[in-house]
C-alpha cells in the first residue's frame, strides 16, 4: 500500500512531463518563436574575438565591453540590463566608435573566411558600429552623444552597405540636429551616395518634405537622376514615392532620364522609373518617358 503513492506520484509527474514536453506540444504553431535565453555559461563569440584584436586592451577589459559583446543583451536595454552607469557606457562606446569608424569600410582586419565568403555589410566592425549607434540613438542625453559623435562621422556611416547602420546613423543625426539642418545637410550628401545607400537616405528624408522644401528635394532628385547609374536612380525614385510631386516637377526629373531611353538594357529600369514617378504623381497625371523624350 505504501508503494502506491510514489508510483502514482511518479506516473503523475511523468504524465505532466509528457504533457509539458512531449511530442503533442510540438505542433506546427504559427505564433511561437524561440528566443535564445540569457547566457548562463560564458561563451566567447567571434565578435568578442575580433573586437579584442581591433580595440585597445584598456577598452576590452571594461564591464561595458562585456555587456556590449553579450549577444543576449538588446541594444534597447544596454545600460539598464547591464547595470551600467551612463558614464561607463559613454566611456566604452565613444572609445570603441573612435577606433572602428576609420576602418569599418575595409572590415577592420576581417577578411574572407576559409571558404572565400566575404560580405562587408556583415563584418564584426560594421555590426558593432551599428550596435553602438543604436544604443546612442536610444540614450542620447545620458550618453552625451554630442560630445563624441560628430555629424561628419555619422554622414560617413551612410556609405556603409549595412542598412541598419545607415538607419542608426540617420537617427543620431536627427537626434543631434534640427530636422531642417539634417534635411539640408544629408540631402546634399545623398548625391554622393549610390544604390541602396542613396535610396535609404532619400526614404528617411521623404517624411520631412513640405511645401517649403519640396523644390529643393526635387532638384536633388533631378541631380541624382542626371548622373546616377540606373540602380541608384531606381532606388532613389522608389524611396521618394511617399512624396507628391506636380506635373512640372515630374517633367523636371523625367527630362534627365532620357539618357536611359532607347537602351535595351535599361528597358526594365525605365519601367521602374516610370512606376515610381507615377506613384509620386498620385494618378493626377501620367508620365511616360518615351513621350517625354521625343
Amino acid at each position, binding site marked *: 500500500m505504501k508503494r502506491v503513492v510514489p508510483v502514482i506520484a511518479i506516473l503523475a509527474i511523468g504524465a505532466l*512531463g*509528457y504533457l509539458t*514536453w*512531449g*511530442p503533442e*506540444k*510540438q505542433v*506546427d*504553431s504559427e*505564433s*511561437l*518563436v*524561440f*528566443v*535564445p*535565453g*540569457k*547566457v*548562463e*555559461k560564458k*561563451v*566567447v*563569440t*567571434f*565578435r*568578442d*574575438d575580433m573586437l579584442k584584436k581591433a580595440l585597445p586592451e584598456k577598452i576590452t577589459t571594461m564591464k561595458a565591453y562585456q555587456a556590449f559583446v553579450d*549577444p*543576449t543583451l538588446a541594444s534597447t536595454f544596454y545600460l539598464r540590463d547591464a547595470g551600467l552607469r551612463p558614464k561607463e557606457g559613454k566611456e566604452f562606446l565613444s572609445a570603441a566608435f573612435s577606433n572602428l569608424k576609420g576602418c569599418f569600410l575595409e572590415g577592420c582586419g576581417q577578411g*574572407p*573566411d*576559409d*571558404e*572565400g*565568403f*566575404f*560580405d*562587408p*555589410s*556583415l563584418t564584426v566592425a560594421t*555590426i558593432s558600429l551599428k*550596435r553602438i549607434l543604436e544604443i546612442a540613438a536610444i540614450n542620447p542625453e545620458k550618453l552625451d552623444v554630442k560630445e563624441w559623435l560628430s555629424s561628419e562621422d555619422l554622414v560617413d556611416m551612410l556609405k556603409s*552597405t549595412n542598412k*541598419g547602420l545607415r538607419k542608426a546613423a540617420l537617427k543620431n543625426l536627427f537626434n543631434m540636429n534640427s530636422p531642417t539642418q539634417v534635411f539640408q545637410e544629408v540631402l546634399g550628401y545623398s548625391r554622393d551616395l549610390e*544604390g*541602396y545607400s542613396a535610396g535609404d537616405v532619400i526614404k528617411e528624408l521623404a517624411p520631412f518634405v513640405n511645401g517649403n522644401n519640396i523644390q529643393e528635394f526635387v532638384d536633388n532628385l533631378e541631380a541624382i537622376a542626371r548622373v546616377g*547609374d*540606373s*540602380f541608384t536612380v*531606381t532606388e532613389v525614385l522608389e524611396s521618394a514615392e511617399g512624396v507628391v510631386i506636380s506635373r512640372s516637377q515630374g517633367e523636371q526629373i523625367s527630362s534627365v532620364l532620357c539618357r536611359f531611353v532607347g*537602351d*535595351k*538594357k*535599361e*528597358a*526594365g*529600369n525605365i*519601367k*521602374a522609373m516610370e*512606376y515610381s514617378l507615377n506613384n509620386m504623381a498620385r494618378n493626377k497625371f501620367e508620365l511616360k518617358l518615351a513621350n517625354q523624350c521625343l
Partner: protein
Amino acid sequence: MKKPILIAAALLSLTPAHAVNGILNGVMATISSKVQIEGPIYRHDKRDQDRYGDQIATIILEEAHRQAKRFLDEGNHQAYNAFIALSLTVPNQEGLMVHFREVDAKRSLCNDERSQGKNIKSDKAKRHFRSALNSGEDFLVPCRKLRREKTYRQLIVGGSDGSDVGIMQVSALWHYDEFLSQGKFASVRSTVRYGLSYLMRRYKKIVRTYGSENCFSKTSGSADYLKIARGTWSAYNGGPSQICRFADPSSPFAGHDEGFKGNLQKTLDLNNGGYFGFNQAGALKLSSSVQSAINEVITNVETGSNNQRAMKAIVN
C-alpha cells in the same frame, strides 16, 4: 548561407527514397523538447508527410512573392517570375527542402557532435553556433537530455564545416547578429524570409545593373534571367563580389555553381513532369493548386508570359 550540402545533394539524384532520410541523418541536430518551433516538420514515411510538400512550397511561394512583388508592380514580370524560380531552388540546393524533421527517438539518430557543433572547423563559427544554439535555454541539446522522448525533433545544420543553419543554410559566422542571435531559426518562415531577403538584395541590384556586367546578357543584349538567378546564388554562396563567379569555369567554386545550375534545372523541369524536392524517388507531393502555381511560374520564366491566376490563388 554559403555552403550548401553539396555532397549530399550530389548523392541524392542517385539514391532511392529511403536513402534520402539516411542522408538527412547525417545533417540533422536534435532540438530540445522544451523549446517551441514554428512551421512544417518533415516526417519521412509518415502519413502526414504528404502535407509537407505543400506546406513548405507555400511558405516559399508566399515569401518569394513578398520579396518580388515590386517587380510585378513595375511591369517587370520576368524579374518577378525568375526570382520565384530562384526561391524555389535555393532551399533545395541549400537544405534539401528540409528545416525541421521528426524521427523516432532512436539513439542512433541523435548526434551530440552535431548538436554541439563539435566538428565545426572554424573556431569563429563554432563560437557563434554554440552561443546561439547551445547556451542559455538550449535549442539544440545533448542526447542524454532526451531520454524519455518518443520522438526527436531536429534542425538541419551542415555546410562544409557544419556551421550553417536551416533550410537556407545561413552561416553562423556571418549572420550571427541578424539571424542566429535573434532565434529566427526556430521558425521555418522566419528562416526562409531572412534567406530570401538576403538573396533579393543581390538579385535586385543585378537586375538593375546587369548591363554593366558581361555575364548576364543574352547575345541580343536583353537580360538573361536564368543567368541572373545563377549569379545571385554565386553571391549568396561567396559574397556580394562574386556575382559573375558562375560564369568562370576555372573558379575554385565552379563545382558549387554547377551544382546550383543542376538544381535550377530541376526547378525548371517542374512543369514538365519533374519532381519537387530531393530526388525523383523522394519527391514531395504537391496539391494541384500549388503544382499549378509552380507550373505557371516556370512557364512564365520559359516563355516570357505573365499568367498569375494560379499564383494569386496561393499568395493572396
